């Protein structure tokens, strides 16, 4: 009896350690590629970073030097426009699914569409924006690129917002209704506010995902070797510039492409951290 107990407890201790080890190992496996990519980018790209990279537009073919200032600003313009389109529509649809359309056919159709949209290859999104915006306008434009990226953000934001809203305890909704607060007000001021950290995370995921997209920009924003911030003209973007430079035969352009990739990743991390910082400033002690 006693030996059996000892054996069993030793076995339990073993499984406990084994399970912990597997969890730690999985974490390492997940994080390693990320760190490896970042280190590799630092090695290959950091040397080419200089003031000109951030202040100059690309040099003409054959000349050494130049920078990606127009592509950095272009990416910011495209992502700003994409967020203006994707965030409100995505969150709005998520609120509808979680709060107002629960159990309706309409909600089912929207949820299904969003899931399909999420699986559509990004180049197809570019084609959609091409036929919706570029063809009627008869020219490539930053606006078309922003639309393509914005549409790509919608399904991710919509579904993650819905999930986050559904996680808000029913008791919190009841508390608001019990105070005589109209339903729409309770949804906006209580449920959405309670779920907002999760909703913001969803927006950031969608933002980071489209920030690196090249395919949907190929025949919408097109890219631009010159300085432009107009929504009505083709605009440069970091992923496009990296794509063009990486495929070129020139060593100088290859180096710039590495630097561009490094800058893109750092900018995404900075943008996400900034939003996290700004949105967490108002959070109180002990908020669960």
């Amino acid at each position, binding site marked *: 009896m006693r030996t059996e107990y000892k054996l069993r407890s030793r076995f339990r201790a073993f499984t406990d350690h084994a399970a912990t080890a597997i969890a730690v190992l999985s974490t390492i496996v997940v994080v390693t590629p990320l760190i490896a990519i970042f280190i590799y980018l630092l090695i290959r790209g950091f040397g080419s970073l200089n003031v000109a990279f951030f202040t100059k537009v690309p040099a003409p073919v054959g000349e050494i030097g130049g920078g990606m200032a127009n592509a950095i600003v272009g990416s910011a313009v495209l992502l700003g426009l994409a967020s203006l389109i994707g965030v409100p529509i995505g969150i709005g649809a998520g609120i509808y699914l979680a709060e107002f359309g629960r159990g309706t056919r309409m909600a089912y159709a929207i949820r299904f569409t969003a899931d399909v949209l999420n699986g559509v290859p990004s180049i197809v999104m570019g084609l959609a924006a091409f036929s919706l915006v570029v063809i009627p306008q008869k020219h490539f434009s930053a606006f078309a690129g922003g639309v393509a990226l914005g549409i790509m953000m919608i399904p991710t934001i919509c579904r993650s917002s819905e999930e986050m809203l559904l996680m808000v305890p029913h008791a919190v909704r009841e508390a608001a209704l019990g*105070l005589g607060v109209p339903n729409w007000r309770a949804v906006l001021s209580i449920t959405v506010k309670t779920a907002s950290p999760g909703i913001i995370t969803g927006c950031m995921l969608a933002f980071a995902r489209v920030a690196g997209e090249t395919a949907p920009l190929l025949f919408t924003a097109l890219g631009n070797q010159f300085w432009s911030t107009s929504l009505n003209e083709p605009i440069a973007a970091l992923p496009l510039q990296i794509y063009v430079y990486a495929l070129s035969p020139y060593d100088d352009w290859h180096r710039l492409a590495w630097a561009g990739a490094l800058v893109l990743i750092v900018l995404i991390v900075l943008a996400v951290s900034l939003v996290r910082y700004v949105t967490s400033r108002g959070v109180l002690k002990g908020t669960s």
Partner: protein
Amino acid sequence: MGVGIEVTNLNAWYGTNHTLQDINLNIPANHATALIGPSGCGKSTFVRCLNRMHETNPIARVTGSVRIGDLDIYQDAKPVEIRRRVGMVFQRPNPFPTMSIYDNVAAGLKLNGFSNRRELDEIVEKSLKNSALWDEVKDDLRKKSGASLSGGQQQRLCIARALAVDPEVLLMDEPASALDPVSTSKIEDLIFQLKSQYTIVIVTHNMQQAARVAEKTGFFLNGRMVEFDSTHKIFTNPSDKRTEDYITGRFG
């Protein structure tokens, strides 16, 4: 000041489940009335019919009439208006987790468009004093979240939140069942003080609690109200055999 409640032929359903059957009852103003009975007997559904929270469930249905003061709540007013006059405290403390203590108490007013800061400050202080929480939280009103308080404090915060809207009736659905004995006795003391200003209806599983706080007690069983009388009579000399069986612990 509190007002009386007159319930006539109240029936309620969840889907096809007839959870309340022909309830007739007069709840006196400015007293505490306890509702007891085994789980699933309909007492929670009953109080949820008194502020029209029952119908927030899409499969729920109600018939009959409930008069609160001179208002027939199913005829004369919208649910949101009723719920401002009939406050509710739930079984589990449910403060708004992202709001400060202050904002939790002010929520009912703020969300209904009330924005006079000076008056809000006064109402928040008064409500927290009425719920015996002021001394414990007055230094952290805006710094701490409602969720950072202990369970018992959270429940008193929820009472303050309900009082801030200045209701005439306060419904309490097992307000102490998730709390420890010390917090429970604080809530009971509070009910004792509050009933001079509000009509209180308290659902409880705890028969001693009913005996301690309420002047009147109703016994519910299987969706019907078996007996309604003074608390003293219910616990010492009930008229119905089923009531007697329940309070002497023969079932439930």
